[in-house]
């Protein structure tokens, strides 16, 4: 393999297979009866793999692979952050995943509240939040974020008799409904979706069948290795070119049609899907996971009177008004379209939520470079 070929410098375990997949992708995109072809993935881990391994340099130039609303921390809406901040400032102890601390609310983040003396703990799992509640006599609120994969863990601890001083402020989100919203946006020209392998491990591939029927757009489930992503895109292009939209599972070692039924039962025993806003995107019917009434005693929103109005007396900083996170998460802009990206907005001083989270498009592009233009090298090597 030519050493100047960008693919050769990727650490593929199987460079020959990678080359074969790239050639297949080239071929399939050429066979499409129009150009360019735009497809969307909805997972920060996919974007990490694409950006880290420089895959966009290996994609055909007529194939646009766009990240949609795949960062659960980023789509946590301002009022949800305000609820957590208001509670923290009221003196309630909050535990949450690390990325949630810096997500901006109307005027403050949880990190700001912590800097002012509020008790905010970073945990890696909901189980650690329960442990905190066991150790302390005070109320512990777990500010829960994540898609269905992560919500299952929250559900598991809630049915396992957690201590009375433990409650959950759920900002969990459910991915399938937001795909419907994005598919219907007039600005998007998405022709197919790459679905996240690990979320589909839980939901099964069948969850996307109705989506395909309703929108006529194919969905292919893909894993996270560079080769998995390439193989997923090849399959997606095959289905797009076939003109017969359907669901395909390109990650069978982790995903089945039925999914993890036990996990689904747990999820829906604890949560119900309800409509709500996703930051910067839209109101998403059935996009938010909230605790069922049977578990009201563990529902922070039922347990406390949360008054966030004191946070609304500040105007948001001027820079925030220029932030493009909403359009970026909807897949109609990329970080390089944002005037703040890499200048006023960096991982050390994030303006928008997409620069806060490790799964945010802006933070990923800032670390790895999002769209390396190595095509000249590729052509030269050919």
């Amino acid at each position, binding site marked *: 393999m030519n050493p100047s070929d960008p693919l050769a410098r990727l*650490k593929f375990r199987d460079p020959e297979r990678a080359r074969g997949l790239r050639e297949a992708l080239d071929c399939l995109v050429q066979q499409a009866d129009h150009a360019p072809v735009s497809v969307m993935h909805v997972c920060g881990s996919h974007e990490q793999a694409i950006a*880290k391994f420089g895959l966009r340099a290996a994609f055909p130039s007529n194939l646009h692979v766009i990240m949609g609303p795949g960062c659960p921390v980023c789509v946590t809406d301002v009022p949800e952050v305000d609820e957590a901040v208001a509670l923290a400032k009221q003196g309630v102890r909050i535990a949450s995943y690390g*990325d949630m601390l810096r997500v901006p609310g109307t005027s403050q983040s949880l990190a700001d509240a912590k800097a002012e003396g509020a008790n905010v703990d970073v945990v890696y799992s909901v189980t650690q939040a329960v442990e905190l509640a066991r150790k302390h006599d005070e109320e512990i609120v777990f500010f829960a974020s*994540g898609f269905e994969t*992560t919500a299952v863990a929250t559900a*598991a601890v809630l049915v396992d008799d957690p201590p009375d001083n433990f409650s959950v402020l759920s900002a969990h989100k459910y991915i399938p409904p937001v795909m419907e919203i994005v598919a219907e946006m007039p600005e998007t020209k998405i022709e197919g979706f790459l679905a996240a392998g*690990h979320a589909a491990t839980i939901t099964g591939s069948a969850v996307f069948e109705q989506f395909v029927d309703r929108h006529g757009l194919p969905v292919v489930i893909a894993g*996270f290795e560079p080769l998995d992503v390439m193989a997923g895109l090849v399959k997606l292009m095959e289905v797009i070119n076939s003109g017969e939209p359907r669901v395909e599972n390109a990650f069978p070692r982790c995903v089945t049609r039925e999914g*993890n039924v036990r996990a689904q039962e*747990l999820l829906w025993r604890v949560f119900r899907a309800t409509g709500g806003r996703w930051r910067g995107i839209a109101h998403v019917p059935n996009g938010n996971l909230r605790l069922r009434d049977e578990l009201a005693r563990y529902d922070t929103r039922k347990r406390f009177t949360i008054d966030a109005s004191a946070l609304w007396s500040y105007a948001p900083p001027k820079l925030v008004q220029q932030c493009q996170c909403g359009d970026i998460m909807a897949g109609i802009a990329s970080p390089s379209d944002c005037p703040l990206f890499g200048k006023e907005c960096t991982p050390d001083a994030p303006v928008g939520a997409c620069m806060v989270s490790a799964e945010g498009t802006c933070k990923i592009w800032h670390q790895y470079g999002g769209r390396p233009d190595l095509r000249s090298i590729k052509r030269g090597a050919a």
Partner: protein
Amino acid sequence: MCLGVPGKVVEVDRENQIATVDFWGVKKQVRLEVCDVPVAPGDFILNHVGFAIRRIPPEEAAETLALYDELLRLADEQDLMAADVRAEIAAAPDASDRPKRTSNESQ
């Protein structure tokens, strides 16, 4: 945060639904109640925030482990993907904490 990380099951406590799982030499306790199939020593599981969300048969594990092997070997401290993997491992309690907790519970 949705990445999950594969590890090898070395011991299963069926009664408490907890497995001792080896992640690149670090032994952790992973909860099993979400997994829909029984796991046995030698199986691989996919751990997400301290829970096994999927059993991976041993013969398919190499494919799944490859990305993670490389990340943990080559990625620097700041790398986002490697940080996600380390966070997934950190999410599960150390296996060595286990006997202590069991004795607390029995008191």
